[in-house]
């Protein structure tokens, strides 16, 4: 359903020749949109480069990529657009970067969200991953920098992680190109609906909050029957997140729940 608008256009001759495939040129017409999220300094841009063949500079500086980068690749005859979201530690505070990332995942509803993690700082990275899993059903976790992790004597149990998080987990070392093929396979399977996942949901049992959340989530469910992540929206509503309050009051959140949105809308909604 999500790709209907894209699929029609990918057939027309004007939709870019094969030469553009790995050039990372803005692919206006793509079948799928993939978002890349992750903490700063996790080698997210390296994963981006490995997937698109672009060479975006990635300094050893937390928070190097400020602007959102876009690129594309094609796989199994389908065109994918890859959006590199700003590196953030969380989706909760109101910094500009986090708002862009949050709004993109929530309102932009990418076909797949890849969360890049650093195995040496897994706790902090999982903090973001868990938050992402609260607002999307289609996520893949990519544990990057495995080469460094091995140098540190770390072993990561990918299957255990996948079981705990409820989403596919790929171990990778993007700088060496390790694991990129597996990541592509997972992206392909998830985008085409051949794999499904049940992301781990957090409970909200802090004090008397659960009742309020249930009440609001129930009301949201009545007002916007198809809306996913009701509990999360209810939580943000309760905390008074201005962007979410606005989206609920104007009914925008319901419209967004219905269909896939083009990048233009996302640009508009990330202000």
């Amino acid at each position, binding site marked *: 359903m999500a790709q209907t608008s894209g699929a029609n256009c990918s057939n027309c001759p004007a939709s870019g020749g094969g030469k553009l495939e790995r050039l990372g040129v803005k692919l206006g017409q793509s079948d799928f949109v993939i978002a890349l999220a992750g903490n700063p300094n996790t080698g997210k841009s390296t994963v981006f480069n490995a997937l698109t063949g672009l060479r975006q500079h990635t300094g050893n500086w937390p928070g190097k990529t400020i602007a959102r980068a876009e690129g594309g690749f094609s796989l199994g005859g389908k065109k994918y657009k890859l959006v590199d979201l700003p590196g953030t530690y969380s989706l*909760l*505070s109101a910094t500009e970067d986090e708002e862009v990332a949050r709004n993109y995942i929530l309102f932009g509803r990418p076909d797949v969200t890849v969360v890049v993690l650093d195995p040496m700082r897994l706790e902090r990275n999982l903090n973001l991953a868990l938050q992402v899993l609260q607002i999307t059903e289609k996520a893949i976790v990519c544990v990057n920098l495995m080469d460094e992790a091995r140098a540190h004597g770390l072993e990561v149990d990918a299957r255990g992680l996948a079981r705990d998080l409820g989403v596919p987990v790929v171990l990778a070392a993007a700088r060496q190109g390790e694991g990129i093929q597996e990541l592509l396979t997972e992206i392909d399977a998830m985008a085409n609906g051949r794999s499904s996942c049940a992301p781990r949901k957090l409970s909200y049992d802090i004090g008397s909050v659960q009742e309020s959340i249930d009440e609001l989530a129930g009301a949201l469910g009545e007002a916007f029957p198809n809306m996913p992540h009701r509990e999360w929206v209810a939580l943000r509503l309760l905390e008074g997140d201005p962007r979410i309050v606005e989206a609920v009051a104007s009914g925008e959140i319901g419209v967004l729940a219905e269909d896939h949105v083009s990048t233009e809308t996302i640009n508009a909604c990330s202000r």
Partner: protein
Amino acid sequence: MCQDTQTIMSEQIQIQHALKFLAECEYERQEVTPESIAAKLTLSPAEGAALLHNLQVAELIEPERIRLTESGRDYALHVLKAHRLYETYLAKKTGHHASQWHKLADEREHELSRQDVEKLDEELGYPRFDPHGDPIPSSTGEMPNKRGALLSTYPVGWVGRVIHIEDEPAHLYSRISQASISTDSIIRLEKKDSLEIVLYLEGERFSFPLEVAEKITVVELDAGEQLDETVQRLSRLPIGAQAQIVGMSSLCRGLERNRLLDLGVVPGTITVAELMNPSGSPVGYRIRGACIALRKEQADRIRIRNVEQ
């Protein structure tokens, strides 16, 4: 013409200040006299009387006694809300120093319409207390009941929690905030004589002039709660030592608080002081796997408990 607008403006500002004062007194259940109003607004007795007369004519206070009418209270709460919200805004979203907030809010509160106040409220995520611990009226004008008593009413050795710090006069307020005492600190009154008081909190002792005891409102601790002698400030952690984070003081707010939370400065996190700048600040702490450098003022606002290695 220009002269006129100015007098009218300042008259309106005077009325707003008077109303705010009346609302504050009503909340504190304090008696208001013509003298106390004149003193608060630094007016002569005659000017004070004229002001009260104006308030009565405008039906903002009752004709017989100095009490807010329904419309007066409504107006007063609006000004109060504007003031406290604006202080919250300054604390959360700007870099102005704490000693500046009150003055800036006093200037700005008169320019904010009801719509502006509503918008500000929304933007700030509907806060319920301002940075000094004063409640902010909700859109229906409700405020939680007043609690606590002044620190000056308690004897030496008493232990309790700070809930409010008066922001006037500015020089005392800035001394209190320099010691990183916040509206959630648990303190012990260690010494009190005719000149000074000494407060113990988070492993440190601070001495203040006696008047400070009149500026701090405190409450008894909840049942089962006690002053934890093992709690210290992160800034005291020596290099190489390990500690568990207990929490952040309410002085750490806004963007900064969210940043630190997201970096893993949450209760239960184990941290090790790893690197110190030769000048003593910043210090690099290992927090949830990464080395994060924090300045002394930031580390002062993070509470820790020492744990065995």
